[in-house]
């Protein structure tokens, strides 16, 4: 029983990382109608940036999250300007091809810079936790959940209360009309992509604090984030939160009851079943 509760906590914490990643993807998709398959590689780079910030610069592990977010926002601006802007509005498949190329670029750049050994961000809370009976609730995972909640609340305020948030929401509904209303769409696109990348950076730093990582870890989180978006419905942030929690729990339960090799397959089985029944996702209104 205590094993099950610990497993559930791990599931929720993993789910929170996926929620951040999925929300970033979701915002980029909602505003730009762009699908970035290299989003998980941004998470991976974020983890390495946080790792460098903690080991080389001696920052606290949790402060390094901010460094990772800032670094990924800068990389996000560069990516949008140099690659995605040039293929937006052409064949939809071109975006997929560009992001596949970027996957190779990021993964191998990480191998070159940091090698391909497994690493983990040293964390002051590691191994400590709340002991209830025989159950150990790790502080690192509890804090991760709180951090994700704080980031999501900040994001919500940004989207609902600020001018740029309004511009983003307008663009996501009708880009041409909002252009006529005086919204500088190109700026909104750059900001959106940078925001999505920063969320991926935060997800990466948290990933690196909770789990060991290497340059190849990005691919599966991307797929899982997609599964979550599809479960929760495209463009819906609350949907992504529900989807992410469900997903994280389902995944760890699958490992707990069925064994490690089922971890990834269960996710896809779930995704495919949902898509067969409802091709636009559980809460999605209208797929493109």
């Amino acid at each position, binding site marked *: 029983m205590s094993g099950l509760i610990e497993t559930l906590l791990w599931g929720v914490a993993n789910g929170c990382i996926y929620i951040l990643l999925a929300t970033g993807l979701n915002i980029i998709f909602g505003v730009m109608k762009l699908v970035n*398959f290299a989003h998980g590689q941004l998470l991976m780079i974020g983890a390495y940036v946080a790792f460098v910030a903690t080991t080389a610069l001696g920052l606290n592990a949790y402060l390094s999250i901010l460094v990772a977010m800032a670094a990924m926002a800068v990389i996000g601006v560069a990516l949008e300007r140099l690659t995605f802007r040039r293929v937006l509005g052409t064949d939809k498949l071109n975006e997929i091809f560009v992001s596949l*190329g970027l996957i*190779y670029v990021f993964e*191998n750049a990480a191998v*070159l810079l940091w090698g391909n050994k497994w690493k983990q961000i040293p964390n002051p809370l590691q191994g400590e936790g709340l002991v209830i009976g025989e159950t150990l609730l790790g502080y690192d995972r509890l804090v991760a959940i709180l951090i994700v909640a704080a980031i999501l609340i900040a994001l919500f305020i940004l989207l609902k209360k600020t001018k740029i948030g309004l511009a983003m929401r307008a663009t996501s509904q009708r880009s041409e009309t909002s252009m006529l209303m005086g919204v500088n769409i190109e700026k909104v696109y750059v900001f959106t992509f940078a925001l999505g990348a920063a969320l991926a950076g935060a997800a990466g730093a948290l990933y690196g604090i909770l789990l060991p990582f290497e340059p190849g870890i990005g691919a599966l989180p991307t797929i899982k984030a997609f599964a979550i978006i599809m479960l929760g419905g495209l463009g819906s942030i609350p949907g992504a939160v529900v989807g992410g929690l469900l997903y994280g729990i389902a995944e760890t339960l699958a490992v707990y009851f069925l064994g490690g090799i089922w971890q990834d*397959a269960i996710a*896809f089985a779930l995704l495919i079943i949902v898509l067969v029944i409802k091709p636009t996702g559980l809460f999605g209104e209208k797929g493109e």
Partner: protein
Amino acid sequence: MPEMFTQLLGSVEKELLEFRQSDKFYFVLGAVAIGLVIPFAASEYVVGEVLTPMIIFMIYASSWNLLAYSGQGSLGHAAFLGIGGFASALLAIKLGLPPVFGLLVGSLFSAGIGLLIGLVCVRLKAWFLAMVTFGFSVIIVTLISQFDSVIGGVMGFPTPLIIERGLPFYYLTFVLAAISIGVMYLLIKSKTGLAFRAIHENEPEAKMIGINIAKYKLLAFVLSTFFAGLAGGLFAQSIRYIQVSVFDPYYSFLPLMMAVIGGLRTIEGPLIGSVIIVTINSYLYKIDDVLQGLMGPLFPNVSNVGPPLRMLSLGLFLVLVVIFLPKGISSLLPKIREYFSEKPKKAKTHEGK
């Protein structure tokens, strides 16, 4: 179905006549001649490790491209490469079928699975489809690992031989590739191909003029997975040993890269892409030592900078091609031809005056 077949035969005849008269005919004739003669000029190693895989990947990349013609894309084509490989090898080993027969049945089996997956996929668009196909390739790996006691795929096993390795296998592959690519060419030029292209260009309009979208998308999926399975059967033979690693996403992205770099939705694109990428993979490692000498000190965390640098360049190459040459390298061919035939053309217009 039968009316589609007669349609196909009718257009085949017309297409062949047209093809015979165009100057493309001599180009193809030249390419086939090179393909037939080149093994004699190459060493045994080059025939086995470079030329044969190149031809096999031509089939594989063309099969991916066929799917792209109908506006669909797959990120999990390795599933069919692997199914074709495993099925043909297992049929030969466990049931004692002759390997040639196993190759055919393996491809049909791959197409059967393709039909089932296609039934799920016809309703899905762009990235949904990409995700689901990727998902299927992950699920298939899990299933093969789960039933490892029957299949033995985790450790892998040697594949049975159809024909002696080296030149005989090369020519077998060559003939099968020529047939497959010829069939795909005729299909694309037929009314079926026209329907594929109509669906890709504008699905609602295609539906409006009475094209049965689901039928044609499914047809594209099944045919594509058939040829991917065939490529898989041959691939398993050429690498001598089959293992679950054949389902690696790398093999799903490879045909995509070949088709896109060569030229998406052209017949020659995947062939050009296959030549380029297989050549890069087979020969570029030779400059690894030089690279290590030059760049090694910059990146102390890796023992050999060659492989990651090569992969990084490949990714960059793909991005650059998509951005600056969206129709792929094959879009340069007409320009090259124009350049060489400029003088005769000028002479002609002169005569006309």
